[in-house]
């Protein structure tokens, strides 16, 4: 009797295991914060609608990259979809971790994503940039904007800053009046990703770039690079003591607390500045695209994009979810959950733009269309680290800006093997 019962139990367990593995579950790796929260909420809606099971695994920013890279390198298939920061795309795509989406689009009877997506949002999802096949779909339309206290800038004689010279002029005056408690400018000076993120828009605004157009030469140590670094150091001199360790949160806090008059930051800080429980500056912060240097200003694009892991066992299901999550209807819902959109129709939707919390949408759309991606290289994390160390040294004053450029040039040449 006991033997029969055990046998029946074993058969039932096997049947359950087989049906569970055949079930089209999707597992999505997402970052902490509003981007991950938004996709997690969308996944819950999808699961309810399709009566399926969608798992989301949420991890801090750096751990998303690590877990995704680890899953890709071991072909574990533990994640079906990864919500990636766009500079990670070359690493994931060129190391065979991402699925080419071409055949999936064909299967869906379309050539690719529709033309309602912003062109810059689509360009980053192709590898190589803007020319190769699609390896992901854009979900969160981040690009840096310039935030400033218009009233304070007006007091300092600058109506609306158009150039970095305007910013410096106002910031200098405000810092001098601030008595060590108020500053005209604040930036992310923390070593690595933070300082690079806030330097690149200035770098580009002075016509500099990390590589030449053909990507055959490293071009950091140039007269354009020197002009950009000179402006960056001048802005450092009018920033609070301690910016050498600042990241986006510290910059956002300084702006929300009304102790700094201007900064570059990501659009999700608009919600912080407009939230009375977190900000003393509700309704007082203005936005603009990145100011110009000797060339037009350009934001760093920082989109969150969804890609299918090559080792996924549920690729078609993952693609279907991605197509659903990036429809205009879903992107609008995502926007209402606090994530900037990637579609023109949502950016210009009057239902949204008439609301105070979305008043930055016209500026953000302009910023995305004028944005530049971080240099697309599979070794970008290593390049960013090396560049970030030299910039951190320059910000801390242990080396001169000229030495920082020279050292960065040598380090990036060594990492990439380019001259």
């Amino acid at each position, binding site marked *: 009797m006991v033997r029969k019962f055990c046998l029946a139990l074993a058969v039932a367990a096997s049947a359950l295991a087989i049906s569970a593995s055949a079930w089209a579950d999707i597992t999505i790796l997402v970052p902490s914060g509003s981007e991950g929260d938004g996709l997690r909420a969308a996944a819950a809606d999808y699961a309810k609608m399709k009566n399926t099971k969608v798992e989301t695994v949420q991890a801090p920013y750096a751990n998303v990259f690590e877990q995704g890279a680890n899953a890709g*390198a071991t072909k574990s298939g533990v994640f079906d979809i990864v919500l990636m920061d766009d500079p990670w795309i070359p690493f994931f795509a060129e*190391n*065979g971790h991402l699925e080419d989406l071409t055949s999936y689009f064909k299967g869906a009877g379309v050539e690719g994503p529709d033309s309602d997506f912003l062109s810059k949002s689509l360009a980053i999802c192709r590898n190589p940039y803007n020319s190769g096949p699609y390896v992901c779909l854009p979900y969160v339309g981040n690009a840096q904007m310039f935030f400033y206290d218009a009233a304070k800038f007006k007091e300092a004689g600058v109506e609306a800053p158009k150039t970095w010279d305007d910013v410096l002029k106002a910031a200098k005056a405000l810092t001098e009046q601030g008595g060590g408690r108020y500053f005209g400018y604040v930036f992310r*000076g*923390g070593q690595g990703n933070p300082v690079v993120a806030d330097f690149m828009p200035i770098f580009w605004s002075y016509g500099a770039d990390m590589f030449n157009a053909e990507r055959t030469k490293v071009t950091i140590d140039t007269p354009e690079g020197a002009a950009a670094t000179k402006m960056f150091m001048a802005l450092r001199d009018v920033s609070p*003591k*301690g910016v*050498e360790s600042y990241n986006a949160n510290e910059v956002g806090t300084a702006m929300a607390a009304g102790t700094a008059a201007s900064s570059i930051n990501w659009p999700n800080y608009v919600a912080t500045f407009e939230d009375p429980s977190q900000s003393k500056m509700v309704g007082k912060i203005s936005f603009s695209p990145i100011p110009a240097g000797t060339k037009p200003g350009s934001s760093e694009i920082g989109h969150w994009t969804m890609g299918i892991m090559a080792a996924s066992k549920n690729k078609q299901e993952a693609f279907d979810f991605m197509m659903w999550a990036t429809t205009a209807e879903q992107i609008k819902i995502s926007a209402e959950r606090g994530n900037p959109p990637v579609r023109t129709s949502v950016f210009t939707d009057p239902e949204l733009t008439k609301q105070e919390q979305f008043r930055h949408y016209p500026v953000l759309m302009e910023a995305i269309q004028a944005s530049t991606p971080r240099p697309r290289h599979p070794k970008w994390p290593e390049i960013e680290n090396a560049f970030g*160390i030299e910039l951190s040294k320059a910000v*801390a004053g242990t080396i001169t800006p000229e030495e920082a450029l020279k050292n960065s040039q040598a380090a990036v040449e060594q990492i990439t093997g380019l001259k």
Partner: protein
Amino acid sequence: MLQTGKSASVRRGGPLEQWTERHLRYLMLAPTVLILLALTIFPSVYMFYAAVHRISPNPDLPWEFVGAGNFARLISDPQFHVALRNTVVFTIVAVTLEFLLGLGLALLLDRFIRRLSFLKTVLMIPMMLPPIAVAITWKLIYEPQFGVLNEIMFLLGLPVQAWAGDVNLAMFSIIVADVWQWTPFIFLLMLAGLASLPVEPYEAAALDGASSWRQFWDLTLPFLKPVIAIALLLRVMDALRLFDLVFILTGGGPADRTKVLSLYIYQVAYRFADPGYAAAMSLFVLFVTIVLSTWFMKRMRLAE
């Protein structure tokens, strides 16, 4: 092995029972040995294997045997040298301060601690906190604009400082946080050591007219030597692995002034996707720890 009546009856059973009886001791040890192999031996062997290969993040590319290549990179990698130097500086300064403060506190409070047992509990709190909670607490204390430390500096009319952002203060700030957390550990060990000291030598020394300093130098310190050795050894081994405080407070900056070995190994392994080189660095740290521990134990005559 004694053959009891019961085992003799088992012997009379089938071949399986006889085999089980013969190998029982090995069967009972097997789970422990297997767990040990899986948790310690296998990862160590795997790390050795990884350290002599170049491992591509692309799973379709085979591991390339590079022999001692990853170890040779240690010699020419400036970032490794910076991390090594910072780790050595941190370990020497932090452990020295913790030892001096811990010993000093123990000597000071030894006589009163029984009456003030709550003090012992209070002093133990930092040690019981998770390192990540300690790091976040100190990050808030050091925050340049809103941190309590700069608020006090401002109220006292002193210049505010970028505690974690200034190249000259960042390592000092990390050391202070570590000393705050781990001095109680040394203090407790020293207190236990002091409580176990024999009374007679002190009485004899007092009769001979030895001063307090003489008694401390000639009696207390030699008696405490084994405890000091264990305390220092544990703290040095722990300090060489420093990660949490640096990761949260400074991220290795500014200007690489607080980049320590654990942080650099983590970056190389997970951010630069170069686990072979990270394994070589980890083996180097393991080697240094073993050499240091052996030398230390011999010096303190613990080996015997």
